[in-house]
């Protein structure tokens, strides 16, 4: 019987079994950033240990960097302290650091693929729950805690339990105006925020076959929002095409050999899965979250659920809590909710194709009065190419602010924050209470084009109507 990609990669990286039954798993690539690594380096120093495989460790700075001050020291001394600490730790341990002056800095999950560090058939770990993003390349990528960052630094391994694998097939063509972001919001709505606990998600089907790498990354990115620590897509020609010629991709004869090896990691046609879910792409709507978990989403044509409609008492409690926090009425239309802020960016939707798609439609439109709209490229590379293409001018002309690369308002550890109970249309991945920097701030997750539609109308809108898609409401 065949094996899944997950099993093959796991087997190739399993070092040995530990006393408690867990596996000691080799982590081929370790990505680190400024928030979850300093304590780990501290623990290493306390124990007199060194980074074991520095050439497999790569660092960037993303969470705390301001997107509107280019010069250090930053106005926030805590942020300045964190970037300096990372610089010091990388220098002391010979770790490659994509610092702000390299032209390569950006959100860790954008930088890895962009540099060609993220490769099929590898294991990747990062002290960040959105590490599953790298699974888009057919890598097994784990989000880990800081003690595990220490473990990887010191041993290049972690102790883990093997996961089950759920295959999620999405077949067919997405309707116009429906994007990869809608696919993952739909999956989470369907399977719930804890549906993926204990599973790796294998995303497959013709919809994924036809997706670009950036679209695959958007879906894999939010696996954790569905409870799955790992999500991946089998590598194919699209994957190899993307990687070819990237700085850290194999070159020359090594390239041919690598591609052959990568192909062999793809799930075998006759392998079995612990669970299979089938989804029809044609049924997926532009999806918007109305609540405080990523599973609380509805199609743009739908109404927000009512407390009474929820099946169990604990569901009723959750809906009631979400409605109270969001200041929404159960049963009201999702369309028409007045927004204050529009955020385009993050490791979910801060890539070139996201900005290209929006730029195609916003020409001739203006951000509505009273709305602050910001665009934050996911990396310096994305920013540079976008600027070469003139996308920055299109956004600025439409009334958006064009910022420097970072996580920015995805989690607001830098100065970009909501104020009070502002409502934000956001292309990021989490709508938790307080996520965007204000303890009462409100977040609605949606695709980049839906964020743009909200920005120009001042309220949650159907992008297909706002931007004149021929098939809207057909």
């Amino acid at each position, binding site marked *: 019987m065949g094996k899944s990609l997950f099993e093959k990669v796991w087997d190739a990286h399993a070092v040995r079994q530990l006393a408690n039954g867990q596996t000691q798993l*080799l982590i081929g690539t370790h990505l680190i950033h400024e928030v*979850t690594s300093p304590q780990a380096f*501290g623990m290493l120093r306390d124990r007199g240990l060194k980074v074991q495989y520095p050439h497999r460790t790569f660092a960037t700075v993303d969470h705390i960097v301001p997107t509107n001050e280019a010069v250090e020291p930053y106005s926030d001394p805590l942020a300045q302290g964190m970037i300096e600490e990372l610089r010091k730790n990388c220098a002391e341990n010979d770790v490659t650091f994509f610092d702000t002056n390299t032209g390569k800095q950006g959100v860790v999950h954008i930088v890895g693929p962009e540099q060609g560090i993220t490769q099929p058939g590898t294991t990747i770990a990062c002290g960040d729950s959105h590490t599953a993003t790298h699974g888009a390349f057919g890598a097994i990528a784990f989000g880990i*805690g800081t*003690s595990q960052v220490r473990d990887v630094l010191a*041993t290049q391994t972690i102790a883990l339990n093997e996961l089950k694998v759920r295959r999620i097939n999405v077949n067919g063509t997405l309707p116009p105006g429906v994007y990869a972001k809608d696919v993952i919001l739909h999956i989470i709505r369907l399977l719930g925020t804890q549906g993926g606990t204990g599973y790796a998600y294998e995303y497959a089907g013709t919809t994924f076959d036809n997706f670009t790498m950036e679209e695959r990354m958007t879906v894999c990115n939010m696996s954790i929002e569905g409870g799955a*620590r790992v999500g991946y897509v089998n590598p194919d020609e699209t994957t190899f095409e993307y990687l070819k010629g990237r700085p850290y991709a194999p070159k020359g004869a090594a390239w041919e050999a690598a591609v052959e090896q990568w192909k062999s990691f793809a799930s075998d046609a006759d392998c079995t899965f612990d669970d299979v879910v089938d989804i029809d792409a044609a049924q997926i709507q532009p999806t918007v979250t109305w609540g405080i978990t990523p599973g609380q989403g509805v199609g743009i044509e739908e109404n927000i659920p009512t407390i009474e409609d929820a099946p169990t008492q604990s569901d009723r409690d959750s809906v009631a809590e979400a409605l109270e926090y969001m200041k929404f009425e159960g049963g009201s239309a999702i369309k028409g909710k007045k927004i204050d802020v529009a955020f385009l960016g993050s490791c979910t939707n801060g890539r070139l194709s996201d900005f290209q798609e929006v730029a195609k439609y916003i020409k001739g439109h203006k951000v509505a009065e009273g709305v602050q709209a910001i665009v934050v490229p996911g990396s310096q590379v994305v920013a540079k190419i976008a600027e070469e293409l003139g996308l920055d001018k299109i956004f600025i002309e439409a009334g958006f602010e064009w910022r420097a690369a970072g996580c920015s308002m995805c989690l607001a550890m830098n100065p970009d924050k909501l104020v009070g109970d502002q409502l934000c249309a956001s292309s990021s991945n989490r709508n938790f209470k307080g996520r965007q920097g204000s303890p009462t701030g409100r977040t609605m997750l949606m695709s980049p084009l839906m964020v743009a539609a909200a920005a120009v109308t001042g309220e949650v809108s159907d992008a297909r109507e706002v931007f004149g898609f021929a098939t809207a409401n057909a």
Partner: protein
Amino acid sequence: MPSTPIKQVTGKGVYVPGDDIDTDRIIPARFMKCITFDGLGEYLFHDVRKTESGEDKKHNLNDPRFAEASIIVSGNNFGCGSSREHAPQSILRAGYNAVIAGSFAEIFFGNSTNLGVVCVIASDADRATIAQAIEANPELEITIDVEDHKIWFGDQSVPCEIKPGARDSLLSGNYDPLDELLEGSADVAKTAGALPYMQA
């Protein structure tokens, strides 16, 4: 060097109601601008406890009756969201060493176990019973018996679940895996040697 085995956890309880208590609620990101975990305890559940102007909200976590609690009782999918170890670190540093929930998010569960924070699963009905018992008597002593899969409170007990791997690690005191991982270094080099991308 193994840590002290954890066979039981005993203490008073506090009920933190709600499902999907995410890591941003456990420790808001703005308190993570730090390079050590020291001092994080102070910000545990900050926005759950405080209004925007910094006053205490009405919440069990602010109620002096539960000030001595060291065991948190909560809902389903506790610890969902981020991989930030700042979450269990702040729980530990605020004086709690166990969480009883309906279920746990996976990364949070692993991070907590590595630190020796005991996470056990009990049914909705049993957690409701425990929560009522705490409310009726905040001084009530709760004991989580890791070995026996039981939670004792007063003269009652209910069953609880703990993942077998985590249970073994707690009982043997090997919940911090670093030493065992270090011992495997020769095998690690062998596994790495067989993978082309691992070569320098």
